[in-house]
């Protein structure tokens, strides 16, 4: 390993300290280049760690960055897809905007998957891409791509800058749009001439108002009142919550709300960790591979209270068989979500950080012991048929569930858990224990395989004092494994568990259940993951026996550095329960 890599490793394993004071280099009135204004904007927005990859069209910005090495931590990834997933992981654990730099053409197109992912999962990200000189736009110049139009449907906002004087105001707007209201990804494309152009720096003014943009709808008191009346009259109220609680930083407000009303609450995959696993009103996971009780009882509750969630089809199953009996109260910051999939009885527009306390003040202190008992009984049934065998299997071969159980025992629910997409993701979401919010990082809406490894890197930069454990399938790991190089170079201490079932497990499960076991191209071979990790100077072990599991996870967690643990699990295990496609939530199958 070269010397420079070692130096970087020593220096940058936990990311930069948050700057105590702004450390910009240029005051208002200075003659600076557009590129310098870009970097000044990052400083002004309190960016500390960000992710990127250089190239021709963004070189002036990278040149400007050279002078800010001591204030900004730019993480060099191995592929631009890795940079945006890392920025997403960063945003999810830190609650701040993730930032990405990429060059024009292929650099920008490599961001597309991540932008789509951030858009559907409402993750605040600002991507800055280089673009060819403005005079060359539309000429098929080298590495010219129409990035603005390619990314229009997958960004909350995007903009092309062709003149340096636009840079401070546009970037201020970009950060404001990305983080306010319902967050989302923003892309700013900057032509090279604007980057090199000198102009008189007007200073940087944070943006907090755009006249055509209303991040938060006005709260309508009458709906709060109506919602409270419904809840007070309910015998079987049921709360379902999503990431809105986390994005709104309303975890406390949410907890007070359900505690006062004695309301059982179930979560979507993205809402996971907003409420501690052990909370007595936490009744589990919704949706296709969610828990038995929450799914079945969705169709028995009398009032369904949805908080910061969007009734995704993976949560609702067939809509015409979804909660038809219930009165529906929907709290959401995005008016377009109300009545989009499920017709609400009472729409409660607004930021749940504001609406929940208003509602809490009006609802009665109550307990719904019998109703809660129904969830507990169904939990028992699920334990007997599914959970016990998954967590404490009798067979010789390990299950994914028991790996998570042991991880829970060792981390105690304090780690950030990052998952990829597939069976391991569903198993981890079902069984991982969480004590703290912003601890579950996964690609929910887009289901992007390859998300976890780069997202875990970003998650650790976003929460440097916490343990970050990535749980990844053998298939998904091979989609972005080049980011092991980023781990090597930064020395970032992420823990990686590959749950290797030698299959593209989730697809195989569907082929088994719905395509008569016709295993069409789901049999995937893998490299020797341990040798691979070692090639990147990352400690690694592989285990296949239960008696080694606990010690192996302990060794991984105690290791002072990144670590990769491969666990060989059952090849043809399935994730249950399951709401088969085209079925209602109450038709959930336990086996």
């Amino acid at each position, binding site marked *: 390993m070269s010397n420079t890599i070692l130096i970087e490793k020593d220096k940058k394993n936990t990311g930069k300290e948050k700057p105590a004071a702004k450390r910009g280099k240029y005051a208002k009135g200075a003659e600076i280049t557009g590129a310098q204004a870009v970097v000044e904007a990052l400083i002004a927005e309190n960016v500390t760690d960000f992710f990127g990859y250089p190239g021709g069209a963004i070189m002036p910005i990278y040149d400007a960055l050279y002078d800010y090495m001591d204030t900004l931590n730019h993480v060099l990834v191995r592929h631009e897809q890795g940079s945006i997933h890392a920025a997403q992981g960063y945003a999810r654990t830190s609650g701040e905007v993730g930032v990405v730099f990429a060059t024009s053409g292929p650099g920008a197109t490599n961001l597309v998957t991540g932008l789509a992912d951030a858009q559907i999962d409402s993750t605040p990200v600002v991507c800055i891409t280089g673009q060819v000189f403005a005079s060359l736009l539309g000429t098929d110049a080298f590495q010219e791509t129409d990035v*603005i*139009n390619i990314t*229009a*449907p997958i960004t*909350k*906002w*995007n*903009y*092309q800058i062709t003149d340096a004087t636009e840079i401070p105001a546009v970037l201020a707007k970009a950060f404001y*749009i990305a983080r306010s209201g319902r967050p989302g990804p923003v892309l700013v494309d900057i032509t090279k001439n604007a980057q090199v152009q000198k102009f008189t720096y007007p200073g940087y003014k944070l943006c*907090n*108002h*755009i*006249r*055509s*943009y*209303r991040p*938060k709808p006005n709260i309508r008191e009458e709906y709060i009142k109506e919602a409270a009346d419904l809840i007070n009259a309910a015998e079987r109220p049921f709360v379902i919550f999503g990431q809105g609680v986390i994005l709104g930083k309303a975890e*406390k*407000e949410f907890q*007070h709300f359900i*505690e*006062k009303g004695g309301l059982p609450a179930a979560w979507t995959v993205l809402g996971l960790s907003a409420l501690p696993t052990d909370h007595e009103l936490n009744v589990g996971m919704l949706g296709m591979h969610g828990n038995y009780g929450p799914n079945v009882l969705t169709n028995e509750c009398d009032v369904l209270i949805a908080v910061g969630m969007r009734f995704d089809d993976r949560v609702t199953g067939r809509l015409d068989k979804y909660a038809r009996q219930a009165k529906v109260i929907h709290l959401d910051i*995005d*008016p*377009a979500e109300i*009545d*989009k999939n499920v017709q609400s009885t009472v729409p409660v527009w607004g*930021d749940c*950080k*504001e609406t929940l*306390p*208003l509602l*809490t*003040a009006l609802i009665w*202190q109550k307990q719904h012991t019998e109703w809660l008992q129904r969830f507990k009984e169904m939990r028992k049934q699920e334990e007997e048929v599914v959970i016990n065998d998954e967590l404490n299997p009798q067979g010789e071969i390990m299950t994914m569930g028991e790996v998570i159980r042991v991880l829970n025992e060792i981390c105690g629910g304090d780690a950030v858990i990052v998952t990829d997409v597939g069976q391991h993701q569903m198993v981890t979401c079902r069984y991982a224990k969480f004590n703290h919010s912003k601890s579950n990082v996964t690609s929910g809406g887009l289901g992007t395989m390859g998300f976890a490894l780069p997202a875990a890197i970003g998650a650790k930069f976003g929460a440097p004092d916490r343990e970050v454990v990535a749980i990844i399938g053998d298939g998904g790991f091979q989609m972005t494994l080049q980011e092991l190089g980023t781990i090597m170079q930064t020395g970032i201490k992420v823990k990686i568990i590959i749950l290797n079932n030698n299959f593209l497990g989730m697809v195989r499960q569907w082929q088994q259940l719905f395509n008569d076991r016709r295993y069409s191209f789901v049999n995937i071979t893998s490299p020797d993951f341990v040798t691979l990790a070692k090639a990147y100077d990352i400690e690694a072990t592989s285990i296949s026996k239960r008696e080694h599991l606990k010690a192996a996870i302990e060794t991984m967690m105690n290791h002072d550095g990144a670590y990769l643990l491969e666990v060989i699990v059952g090849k043809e295990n399935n994730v249950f329960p399951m709401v088969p496609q085209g079925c209602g939530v109450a038709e959930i199958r336990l086996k």
Partner: protein
Amino acid sequence: MKQEYTITVYTENHIGLLNRIAIMFSRRKINIESLNTSPSEIEGIHRFTIVINEAEDVVKKLVRQIEKQVEVLKAYYNTNDEIVWQQLALYKMSTDKVIADVKVERLLRKYGARAVVIRKDYTVFETTGHREEIDKLTEVLGSLGLIEFVRSARVAIINASSGFYEKLQEFEAEKPGEEIVENEFLDKQDEVFSM
């Protein structure tokens, strides 16, 4: 039930917004019958008029999505009886034909068409009206030597609207909300939460 809806969108003047709005229709495989962009009653604010044939439920959801775009100030949708609308059509005919055939002249008069250009070789007529009338005239002229035809997009005025001035003032006045650190109820926990 599907029927004709006219969607009116007030927007900032922003390059790329036309595409952002158009792809919201194509993504849902909704055919745009007509689309017009123009200035509005307020300087600097643009007005899109879009006609589609869809069920109200679909239109309502679509309009909410359109309103979500950062540069969109407001979007409305209306049925035909809630608006006054017009379209413009231009017809190019051979001047000889027009002179020779009295039928043509009669037709043009019946439909209120007027000549905008008369040359030796051709004449251009213009009519304004609803699409059905324009279509009818086009159909008959078709058999009488119509050389070229073009119809503009619909422009529409909303009967019940009192213009956008007030709304705009509301938007401009809307001060950014105070950053909430903790809400008032959490500070007064003992009073609000009795558990």
